[in-house]
């Protein structure tokens, strides 16, 4: 069931990433972590300058997964300019360390000049603010003014089973089982060794 949900989410992200950019309510990403724009599940429209990065933040509870997609619409630019363009999506933890990165390489969708990518993290251990950044390299000819391109951002939060269960199993049930296994192996060793010894004696 969880696998099915993950597949569905991936499908939704892929479809939204492939759809024309800048669909959904407008949002203004921040210039760094401290002014990152808060987002929830959904699709959002922003704009991204060439050579710049925008930041968003998403609040996650323990055990949740974060899926993020970004898509830039470069159809306003000459196709010959976008060949070296690259869109980078990064996901960061609550202490702003990078957890995942995805990057587009080469030309995007030739029909729409779209560049799309997505990344996922989780289930997370630490609840709190997680960060998403989308950055576009400075691919325009030297001396050109930056161009602003429509950016679509998609956020999916998948409430999977909390990992606390695994921790509990590992810390309580897991420890008891290990001691039982040790005892069982010891008894088995005594029996095996004793049986071997008896065989030796009878010879």
């Amino acid at each position: 069931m969880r696998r099915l949900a993950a597949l569905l989410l991936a499908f939704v992200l892929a479809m939204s990433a492939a759809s024309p950019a800048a669909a959904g309510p407008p949002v203004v990403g921040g210039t760094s972590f401290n002014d990152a724009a808060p987002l929830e599940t959904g699709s959002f429209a922003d704009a991204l300058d060439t050579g710049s990065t925008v930041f968003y933040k998403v609040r996650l509870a323990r055990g949740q997964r974060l899926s993020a997609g970004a898509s830039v619409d470069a159809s306003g630019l000459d196709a010959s300019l976008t060949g070296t363009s690259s869109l980078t999506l990064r996901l960061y933890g609550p202490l702003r360390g990078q957890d995942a990165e995805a990057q587009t390489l080469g030309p995007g969708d030739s029909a729409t000049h779209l560049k799309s990518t997505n990344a996922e993290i989780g289930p997370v251990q630490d609840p709190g603010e997680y960060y998403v950044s989308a950055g576009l390299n400075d691919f325009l000819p030297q001396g050109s003014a930056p161009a602003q391109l429509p950016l679509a951002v998609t956020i999916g939060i998948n409430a999977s089973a909390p990992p606390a269960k695994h921790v509990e199993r590992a810390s309580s049930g897991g420890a008891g089982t290990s001691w039982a296994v040790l005892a069982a192996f010891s008894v088995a060793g005594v029996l095996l060794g004793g049986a071997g010894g008896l065989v030796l004696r009878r010879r």
Partner: protein
Amino acid sequence: MGKRVLRGALVAAALLALVPGAGAQTNDLAKPRSSLDIVLDSSKAMGQTRLAAARGAIVRAVRALPAGTPVGLRLYGSKVPANDRGSSCSDSRTAVPVTPANPSAMRSALKGLTPTGLAPVSLALSRAAKDLPPAGERTIVLVAGGADSCAPPPPCQTGTVGSAAPPVRVDAIGVEVNAAGRRALQCAARASGGVYRDAATPAALEPELEAALGRATRDRRSLGKPIAGGVEEQQGTPVRPGEYLDSIAPDTERWYHVSVPPGHVLSAAATLVAPPTGDVSAPGSTLTLDAFGAGSQAGTLAGNDATDSESNLFAFDPSRTITVSVKAQPSQTGNSVRVALHDSPDKQFAQKLAGRSLALELLFRLPPAPAGRALPPRTGTAGSASSHDVSWGAAIAALVMCAAIAFAGVGFAPRPRVRAEDEP
């Protein structure tokens, strides 16, 4: 407003007192750079409903701008009726000059505005470019109900905006426009390096306008409460949990003191933010974050709670942020935090920054210590493993040892001596 000015003055004074030369650097970070001009379609084609929605949206969006943002308002098609085509096609006027945001002035200028004439979009854009100050990031936000009804040439072919120096970007919002209007406005935006957005209904205009203004003034958004860290441990600035903005120059340190209540642990992160443009890569440079326990001293490794560092800053990674973070151990009270920026051996930071500092975002958190975990988390070494964990290797070793002992004990035990009377 007064409080904000006072706070700014206090921060500046603190910076000057603590860090020689740092006041100017922080002022640079906070220096207003972007300016914008809103161009509103007041032509007959816009219609009363859409114009009324735009009037309200503009006042509210300007009110939401960061204080001091230079913003103006230009109208077109607001005065001369459409039947006087020659004059109506020249009808573009400044309603509010580009000055620090003043919602009241905007409201007064928009009061009683009715849709009147033709729509000289191209003319209005070229004049709006001249309304803006000749420096910094300059943006025109065009709110229109359709295409230019006076041109040729269409707005995207005039080149008057796109060729301005410094460049002016046009972000266009079409309010319930038809396909031809959308194409024309999209063209005007793209030609200047801007974006076009549809407001499918008059009500949808306000969030679109707020976003457009927000993007145009992104450089003015608050990056956290301003703070100035001390230059040495004894001058550490007391901080509470939260997000802060400091600045740091190459080959300097910043010190902060965090009071950690019992039952909590200290988490801290420091992010070095490169300027939006320009090369600041410095192979060989290092950013370090240390958290020291109570009573420990800098450089005393035994008292060092936690440390993190990144090297070769901005050199091999396209990211314009570098973050270091620490989680102090629950058993120790981390209350001194040091951020150190070491330049490369050939002083590339110093050369490329030319005396300026880099923005430093700080995050301090005091989450509760994990229950039942007074000791540092496991590192995976044998010495630190939990006493409750038994590995499969240990179980197999126990089996082999027990088997060997039992085998030896039974197999090689001395046979019982046979007594003489038992002999046949």
